[in-house]
């Protein structure tokens, strides 16, 4: 009888990211409604996401708020608060990425009512692969790559670098000490994503930060 067992087929026809995308849409609606421009910052661990955000916090002050998803300790959020803006730490429970539901939950804990608040930055979990598939409801996906990681990373992580709108190359202060071809990185990133905008900065020394922050300010004052 084995060959003859009838199988019943049940259609599912459901995109797996459906639930995430519903939360992302609801985050986007909430944030756009409050006229808050939102940025999803993705990089490998140690590329300088928190340092970049500290530097931005000094520039934007109370115009900016941060959702910190990077590590489970409260340390990164504390660094941001010290630099002068509101920060909420997501407990990721060891997950390799943030999803839109976690961000939705975080938004419920934050004070989004201030008229001054115009920019929300989400520091994703340090990982170049997993966060790339999850829309969080952001307006801008930003990839951060730092010089010590090497200039061959773009084509190794095409899923991320094809989806970002802005590439920030960080730790430019190390350029004299590291063999890193900035143009190669830019060319390879454009080959995945012709419209990507590139900023070269040092979050540590502040080099290039004004151009990057001016660009963001133009985005949210439009």
């Amino acid at each position, binding site marked *: 009888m084995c060959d003859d067992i009838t199988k019943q087929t*049940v259609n*599912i026809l459901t995109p797996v990211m459906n639930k995430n995308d519903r939360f992302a849409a609801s985050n986007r609606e909430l944030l756009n409604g409050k006229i808050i421009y939102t940025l999803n910052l993705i990089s490998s661990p140690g590329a300088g996401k928190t340092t970049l955000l500290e530097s931005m916090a000094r520039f934007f002050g109370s115009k900016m708020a941060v959702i910190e998803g990077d590590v489970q300790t409260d340390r990164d959020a504390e660094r941001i608060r010290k630099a002068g803006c509101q920060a909420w730490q997501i407990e990721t429970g060891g997950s390799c990425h943030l999803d839109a539901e976690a961000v939705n939950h975080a938004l419920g804990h934050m004070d989004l009512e201030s008229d001054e608040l115009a920019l929300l930055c989400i520091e994703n979990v340090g990982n170049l692969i997993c966060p790339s598939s999850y829309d969080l409801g952001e307006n801008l996906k930003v990839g951060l790559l730092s010089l010590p990681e090497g200039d061959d990373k773009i084509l190794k992580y095409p899923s991320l670098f094809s989806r970002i709108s802005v590439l920030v190359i960080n730790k430019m202060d190390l350029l004299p000490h590291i063999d890193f071809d900035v143009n190669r990185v830019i060319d390879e990133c454009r080959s995945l994503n012709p419209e990507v905008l590139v900023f070269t900065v040092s979050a540590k020394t502040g080099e290039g930060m004004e151009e990057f922050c001016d660009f963001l300010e133009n985005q949210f004052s439009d």
Partner: protein
Amino acid sequence: MHELSLAKDMTRIIGKVLGGCKPLDTVNITIGPLSGISPESLRFCFTEVAKMEGFGEPRLVITETEAKLICLDCDAEYQAKEFYQGCPLCGSFNRRILSGREFTVDSVEIMEGTD
């Protein structure tokens, strides 16, 4: 390994349509080559998750689609199996992605009389 959470999303979606968990014979899914999902690690994770959550040990049948791209230099529309394939006519990588990021659970097959 976001494939682990994706595998859990898959069983959540299947369980919702079936109104609970039951042993499955086959699960048919579609993955686009630009989705950022590794079929091998998804298969590995799904096997574990399905067993753990009471869906048995179904065969996971993965349809891998081709991506559709449009060349921004010569306007050719072309298909690609991965990110590193440029325009077949002019070689350019200057292009827009039309599709290739899909990831869907298409259907499941259940043995009659096992519910």
